[in-house]
């Protein structure tokens, strides 16, 4: 038992020494792994930013219900009552036509036009928020409202929701694809490195076997090697992402300001960072395991 623990320590130390023995090579390997991991991690960061942006701008997709311009207050009251009773409606805000006119006058540019009007050209309206904000549900709600008496026009802003949704979905798909590809890439890189290591250590492996080393004894340093490669690569990826976040902050802010958005790129949080490191180390270990399977046989 003590010998076993001791050998684990020795293996880790040996793996470390093998990494340190070829520093440039190790650094380049780590860099390759780091870059492979930085891309999905960075994508995750950007997507998180975009999601937060989406949350900021499109929290509450709305349906606007315009009454007929000739409809009277009673009709509007009727619709208001219906909306309040409707189970799918979360909130309905009444916009009286007088209020709209006053607001429009206050707005820039339109004042002269509106003051020249003989009558109030705006109808009564309701701004409705719903419980089920999925595009389909909103579409169905709009169709229903359109049939109510005195309703002239129902405007749905689900198009925007759908756009953003579709964009985020695309982003997620691309990110997943990227993560899978590059996770696979990491496994491939450690696989190669460990396979080559096995080849370089061929003599040592052969001699150790002849002197009575068990398979576990022989494999352990290589598994630690893969683990360390993954972990180090993960750390580099973390730094690359943090660096990119800092470096991209200025141009992103400029861009966001043009769109009147607040888009903040935050470096990875503690949980995401931990996940990144654990996944990286795990994939490195896995690559080493596959590699040993292939080059040293099943046992």
């Amino acid at each position, binding site marked *: 038992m003590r*010998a076993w623990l001791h*050998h684990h320590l020795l293996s880790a130390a040996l793996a470390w020494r093998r990494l340190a023995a070829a520093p440039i090579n190790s650094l380049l390997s780590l860099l390759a792994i780091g870059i492979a991991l930085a891309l999905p991690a960075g994508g995750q960061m950007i997507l998180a930013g975009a999601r937060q942006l989406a949350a900021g701008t499109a929290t509450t997709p709305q349906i606007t219900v315009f009454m007929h311009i000739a409809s009277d207050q009673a009709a509007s009251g009727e619709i208001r009552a219906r909306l309040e009773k409707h189970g799918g409606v979360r909130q309905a805000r009444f916009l009286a036509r007088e209020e709209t006119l006053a607001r429009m006058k206050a707005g820039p540019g339109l004042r002269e036009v509106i003051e020249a009007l003989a009558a109030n050209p705006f109808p009564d309206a309701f701004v409705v928020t719903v419980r089920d904000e999925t595009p389909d549900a909103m579409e169905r709600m709009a169709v229903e409202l359109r049939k109510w008496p005195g309703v002239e026009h129902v405007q749905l802003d689900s198009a925007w929701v759908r756009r953003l949704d579709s964009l985020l979905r695309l982003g997620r798909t691309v990110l997943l694809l990227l993560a899978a590809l590059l996770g696979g890439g990491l496994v491939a890189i450690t696989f190669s490195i460990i396979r080559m290591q096995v080849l370089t250590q061929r003599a040592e492996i052969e001699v150790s076997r*002849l*002197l009575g080393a068990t398979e576990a004894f022989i494999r352990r340093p290589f598994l630690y090697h893969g683990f360390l490669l993954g972990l180090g690569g993960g750390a580099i990826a973390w730094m690359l992402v943090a660096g990119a976040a800092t470096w991209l902050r200025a141009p992103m802010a400029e861009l966001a300001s043009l769109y009147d958005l607040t888009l903040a790129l935050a470096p990875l949080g503690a949980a995401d960072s931990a996940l990144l490191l654990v996944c990286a180390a795990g994939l490195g270990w896995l690559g080493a395991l596959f590699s040993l399977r292939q080059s040293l046989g099943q046992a």
Partner: protein
Amino acid sequence: MIRFDRVSKRYPPGVDALDGLSFELDDGGMLLVGGHSGAGKSTLLKLVAGVERATSGAVLVGGQNLGGLPRSALPYYRRRLGVVFQDQKLLFDRSAYDNVMLPLTISGFPVREAAARVRAALDKVGLGKREKALPIMLSGGEQQRLAIARAVVGRPDLLLADEPTAHLDAENAADVARILVEFNRVGVTLLVATYAQELFPGARRLLLDHGRIRP
């Protein structure tokens, strides 16, 4: 006790290295294996070391048939042996000291005692002052002695040596032979493949000729 019972070994392309070989060697005994180049001496030793398996017949060591030994038990069997390989099998990226330390590390020997044992083994073969040298820095004969130090450092019950005095001048060869015979005197079973049979006077001999015992 080592017992070969009609052991044959055929290598894949169809080379019969050993052909129906039978002999016995008691615990604590000594046996020299001779014969021409390609006679099967190394093959015999490899069968005992569990490096190769017999094609037919039984190789018994300590009552255990090596042919029936599961793969997972092999490492533990090998730890009880000391082997000097014909091609030495030294690690060229490790110092003499580390080469001799390797079998002790593998068998999980306590680290502190191990250092003393390694030094003692190196001293015994006259390499006490070269412990930091890489094998490449040693002459052919020094490498040979290093391989012997590694074989004996674990104080095995059974010592196999394949041409242990090749590459050695007469004086060094006699020294090495003396070391091996000393081990045998304190109870270690000794099996040596060698052309230099005159270095082991009075020992039992087994002369091979194309894989068979020459009568």
